[in-house]
């Protein structure tokens, strides 16, 4: 369902308005008063229309009328929940989304039901020797020993080295530009984040052998002494 980094799950707080109560003229008045008390909070706030217990709303025009009514109260209707098939069809026709039917006060946004699984970081406790490559697929990489010249660390997430980093370190190997590299002693042959790289001789001399963190800032590899 989710296509890599293109689609991400997120949770939002959305107000729910019960369609059954809309018929009550007092309800509209009370809602207007409540909005008047904290107008900022309700400015353009998303609203989901809960259709539980109502039989009408089988025409797109009925949804549009409610939308306009809510619009006048500065609310933006974004979808419906607890809809019957005919109601859902009408709502979709009017351009509204369908929210999970049983959520009552805090419906989840559409998309993946759960955030993508967080994989545990890969932990390496032995020195990483020349000629060896360690790849942390889909996770962070933590090394608690030295990384020798000629060794290579690759991680889809962040790289942490609690020791001298003398080999290569490539973080965000799958393209994550937010990935970072941390080490307690920077003597690397090459550092890279999401494909942008610096070789040893391009590293600022005043960072050499210091504890640093490396991040991608405005598309530039930026080394900060810790």
């Amino acid at each position, binding site marked *: 369902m989710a296509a890599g980094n293109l689609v991400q799950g997120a949770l939002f707080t959305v107000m729910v308005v019960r369609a059954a109560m809309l018929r009550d003229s007092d309800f509209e008045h009370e809602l207007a008063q409540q909005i008047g008390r904290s107008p900022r909070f309700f400015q353009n706030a998303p609203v989901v229309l809960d259709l539980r217990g109502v039989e009408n709303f089988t025409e797109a025009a009925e949804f549009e009328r409610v939308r306009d009514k809510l619009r006048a109260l500065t609310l933006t209707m974004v979808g419906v929940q607890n809809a019957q098939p005919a109601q859902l069809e009408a709502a979709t026709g009017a351009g509204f989304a369908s929210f999970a039917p049983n959520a009552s006060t805090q419906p989840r946004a559409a998309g993946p039901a759960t955030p993508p699984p967080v994989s545990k970081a890969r932990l390496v406790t032995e020195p990483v*020797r020349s*000629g060896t490559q360690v790849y942390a697929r889909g996770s962070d990489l933590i090394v608690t020993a030295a990384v020798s010249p*000629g060794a290579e660390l690759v991680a889809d997430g962040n790289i942490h080295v609690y020791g001298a980093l003398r080999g290569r370190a490539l973080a965000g190997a799958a393209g994550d530009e937010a990935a970072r590299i941390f080490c307690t002693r920077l003597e690397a042959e090459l550092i890279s984040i999401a494909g942008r790289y610096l070789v040893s001789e391009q590293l600022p001399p005043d960072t050499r052998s210091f504890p640093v963190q490396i991040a991608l800032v405005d598309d530039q590899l930026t080394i900060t002494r810790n």
Partner: protein
Amino acid sequence: MAAETDLKKDAPIGPAKAGGEAGLAKVIVITSGKGGVGKTTTSAAFAAGLALRGHKTVVIDFDVGLRNLDLVMGCERRVVFDFINVINGDANLNQALIKDKRHDNLFIFPTSQTRDKNALKREGVERVMEELKQQFEYIICDSPAGIEHGAITALYFADSAIIVTNPEVSSVRDSDRIIGILASRSRRAERNEPPVDVHLLLTRYDPARVAKGEMLAVEDVKEILSIPLLGVIPESESVLRASNTGTPVVFDENSPAGRAYVDAVARFLGEQREMRFVQPERRSFFKAIFGRA
């Protein structure tokens, strides 16, 4: 021992037991990755040093096609059968083993000069190793340079490894590589057994040149390789002389290198000894003029 007619196969052979399980021989590989750093010199010196300490020791030349150990051990005129003959079943072990003339505990197992490393078949080597373990306390494997088949076969059966390193960056990097290979491709690694115990031996060390910044210092090498230091062998003319006369350098009591090897063997056997030959020597006026004796 003479009174015992019923000799058990697993009974310890020498006066002291080899490390590990009771009576089981210990296989030590002398390796480096890089060539010319002193593997064969170290193999000869270490084997002789262990023999001098009363341990029955054999040293095997794994450098098939570039046979040198027999020269350094001074037994080149006595080679009839070799390691490859035994692997191929053309000769038995006792026909190929050469007993050292200087010490009863010391044996040399020469290799073939006419074959190449492909003749080192793992099953054959394994069989020979098992057979050697019945007779010896220590089996020293003199590895060829490189990280190819010959070097891998030499380290595959190791329980301990001595990483021979010169105080210069390319040697240190190659040592690092071979330490990584020991941790991933030795039999102990493949079987998930306790890892090969790895020791650093720094050879051709010249404290005067270290002081001038022309050579890496002991501490630098230790820090990069992060393995325990077994010894520092000073650069010494006696090493070349020992090689050319076919006498392991430990037999030369006047040689600083020989004494440093004796210390290293003692440390390997668990003794505490102070590191010598790591400070620049104060040269007297006469020595400065006439050179070192």
